């Protein structure tokens, strides 16, 4: 840990170097962390790594011209070099008449402290502790004749921001993740648990590996079914893919301004089932919270969809100015060419149990997870991807057996207009590419479009 005081000391030095280089306004951000990850495959640990890094990012601003630079050399020479490089870019850059400037201290006031965001035990979890968790999954897999793979990761991170507008923000946090994929006879199952505290997941981790192994065992000898429209029960991991892509395609204010968003012109209208309420809560300690954005603006809680109606858009200073709104604390930084995106998405739970969703389905498919999903037609929110790690036929309200994996090509908005039930239990899920935590329940949809199949 660098700590609050030393972080600000480094940032003050950066602001001073930027001023010395000729910047009229200055921004400095310190991102630091240590992360460790134990990876296993074939029931043993095959990769086991640790990394410590700290990077300072600076921006030099002269009027409406700006330039940025970053370095992980935090000594005076390293920071000074980055400041001069940022200034050299700012000097040569064309003027950006729409540059909103740095957030003011009034807009970027003190962010709240989030109790539980930083858990010392999680941030400093030992390699031996992670190995013991791996051992739990591997032993269970071996006892069932199954091959287990996965990871256990832990770490701590710090983010500090200082600007010449007197904005000062600091936060620290911890993160933990455990995932297991089990395979036998070509069949697979998996599980994934993520959050900011290892202890908060204790009950799950006591059985680490069991769900993946049981799913793999049930997935053996899959039958082929025809692609087409199927009723589906989506486990939380599958739901997280749909929600993540909806957020990406629909809730970027910059994309709204450019007409690229699937929700452009649809804000305030019904775009999904009234059973769907989607929020963004960067202050929730159950996710991996971050109380302010990369401009230093405190995060606001947003309601993205309220009973299916598109409601709030996240904003950075630039999109807020252009759309007559206020920054919401979702910026990637004053110089980022990206818009603003929700990063802590929560889908409100309903009342249904997974058992009820399956029991109420005469014929359909249970999907554990989607994989390698990508955008097919962005303005229609059409995405395509594969199922993975557990696809089951539901007949007469019961799981009737495993099915060969299938490709889906479907509009998220159309799929979310066909919600029949929402699960009562919310699960924190790491993204397809380990990119954050999305908290979602299971969903039952009356129809979902599958467009291809595999042999396994």
């Amino acid at each position, binding site marked *: 840990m660098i700590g609050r005081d030393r972080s600000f000391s480094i940032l003050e030095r950066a602001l001073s170097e930027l001023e010395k280089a000729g910047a009229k306004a200055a921004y400095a951000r310190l991102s630091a962390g240590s992360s460790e990850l134990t990876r296993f495959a074939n029931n043993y640990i095959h990769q086991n790594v640790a990394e410590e890094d700290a990077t300072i990012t600076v921006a030099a601003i002269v009027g409406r011209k700006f330039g940025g630079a970053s*370095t992980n050399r935090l000594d005076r020479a390293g920071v000074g070099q980055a400041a001069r490089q940022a200034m050299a870019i700012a000097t040569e850059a064309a003027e950006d008449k729409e540059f909103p400037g740095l957030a003011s201290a009034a807009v970027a006031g003190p962010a709240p402290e989030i109790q539980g965001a930083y858990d010392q035990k999680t941030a400093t979890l*030992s390699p031996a502790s992670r190995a013991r968790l791996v051992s739990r999954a591997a032993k269970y897999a071996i006892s069932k004749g199954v091959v287990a793979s996965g990871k256990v990761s832990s770490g701590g991170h710090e983010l500090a921001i200082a600007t010449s507008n007197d904005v000062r923000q600091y936060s620290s946090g911890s993160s933990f993740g455990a995932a297991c994929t089990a395979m036998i006879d070509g069949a697979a199952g998996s599980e994934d648990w993520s959050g900011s505290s290892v202890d908060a997941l204790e009950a799950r981790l006591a059985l680490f590996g069991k769900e993946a192994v049981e799913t793999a065992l049930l997935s053996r000898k899959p039958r082929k079914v025809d692609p087409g429209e199927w009723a589906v029960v989506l486990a939380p991991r599958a739901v997280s893919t749909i929600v993540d892509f909806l957020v990406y395609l629909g809730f970027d204010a910059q994309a709204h301004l450019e007409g690229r968003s699937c929700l452009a012109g649809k804000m305030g209208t019904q775009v999904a089932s009234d059973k769907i309420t989607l929020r963004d809560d960067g202050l929730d300690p159950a996710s991996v919270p971050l109380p302010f954005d990369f401009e230093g603006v405190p995060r606001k809680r947003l309601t993205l969809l309220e009973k299916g109606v598109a409601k709030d858009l996240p904003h950075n200073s630039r999109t807020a100015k252009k759309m007559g709104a206020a920054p919401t604390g979702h910026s990637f930084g004053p110089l980022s060419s990206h818009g603003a995106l929700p990063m802590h998405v929560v889908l409100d739970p309903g009342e249904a149990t997974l058992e009820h969703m399956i029991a109420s389905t005469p014929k359909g498919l249970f999907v554990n997870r989607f994989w390698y999903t990508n955008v097919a037609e962005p303005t229609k929110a059409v995405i395509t991807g594969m199922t993975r790690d557990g696809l089951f036929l539901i007949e007469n309200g019961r799981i009737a057996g495993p099915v060969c994996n299938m490709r889906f090509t479907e509009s998220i908005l159309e799929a979310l207009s066909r919600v029949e039930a929402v699960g009562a239990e919310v699960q924190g899920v790491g993204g397809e590419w380990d990119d954050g935590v999305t908290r979602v329940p299971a969903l039952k949809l009356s129809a979902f479009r599958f467009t291809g199949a595999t042999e396994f």
Partner: protein
Amino acid sequence: MEDVLKSALDAARVLGATFAEARLVDERSESYEVKNGKPAAASSSASVGLGVRVIIDGCWGFASVADVSKKSQAARVAKLAARIARASAVVRAAEPAKLGPGGEPGEGRYSTPVQEDPFAVSVEEKLGLLAAAEKRLRGPELPVTQAFLSIFRKRTHFANTEGVSFDQDIVETGAGIAATAVRGSDFQVRSYPNSFRGNFATAGFEYVRAMDLAGNAERVSAEARQLLDAPQCPAGRRDVVLDGGQLALQVHESIGHPIELDRVFGTEAAYAGTSFLTTEKLGGFKYGSEHVNVVADATEPGGLGTFGFDDEGTPGKRVDVIRNGVFVGYISDRESAARLNLASSGAARADGWGRIPLVRMTNINLLPGEWKFDDLLADTDGGLYLATNRSWSIDDRRLNFQFGTEVAWDISGGKLGRMYKNPTYTGITPEFWGSCDAVCSRDFWKMWGTPNCGKGQPGQTAHVGHGTSPARFRNVQVGVVK
């Protein structure tokens, strides 16, 4: 530098390592974007650090740190790597980690041949070049016009306990333009020379100058606008010709990843997935038609996978992957190759100082055939020409894929005819490559850079290359099955 590496290796030996390697990596990059007449992004970054990997008691450990200003840091990192390796022994393999042959003991040196150092070109000139190209993209119904430029330098100092060491200086340069046309709820993008920020090579700034971004801008904009009026690409079975850029990603996803030997052995099972290309297929599996010849070639000039040494110290080399349609070789690192009693293919690559080497693509190249492009079009009446990747998706064993491209044209009378929007095609890997019956010649062959190949946990991004020329595939499912 040598002192730091030596300190790390000495400490590792004292701690009981039977093998250790240390990499001190110094990376620098600059990235520029001009969007709608304004500088949307202009920044530079620098990152320096040390990574140490050890085998103790037959188990791996790795640790890394950014701060290498003090020599004592090297010993501290080695100590943490040793502690981690001992933890790995809690859940150990039946057999200790074993490494096959890699580099020969000695000191190696490699630098990317560069005519014009991209870091020496002024910021003013870089931004001016982009601004000139972006200005020519602008027009009605084009709310987003962009020009991109990225340069990257990676200096690696490597040493291991077997006496192998090298210094390597890799320079990469890339650029591109893109126009986004919007009307109502439709938006369409055209790019040059490739989508997702352009094309990239191990080369100097001469590579960007030769692109003629400004000279291609008006065509790119015109095509983006034409796509708004174009009909949806009809679904059905069609003969297709893929342009080199799309074919590069087809090679990447359906050949480059399945031939990674670590995936085959299951070490990526929980994340990137496994591979259908199990070891009994080596030497006999019919991967494609006799027109399909593929190599993994780290020696091909200009590729993003071109280097002198991989991150285990194995010299860059060219290995056959598919010969006349038959699968003949994996890409591997020392550990995975040893399981087949083979030497490493020289494909162990790490994303910077804080990551371990994994089996990664070098330049996975589809070798040229004999066809002239015009002759191929003339011979493909009723087919479709698909150009420039827009989306990609493939299952976790690399069999069922679906790609989207920015544009398609009917092939009619030896020429490109009607334009279609939102084209997609789908298939199963060996069937698709089995349907390849024509590959264009060396005159139409070029290297494509993919700077965003993801793999591993924690995540790693590799810069890899693909040499391709346009090729024809028969009876392909175009569009989504209803």
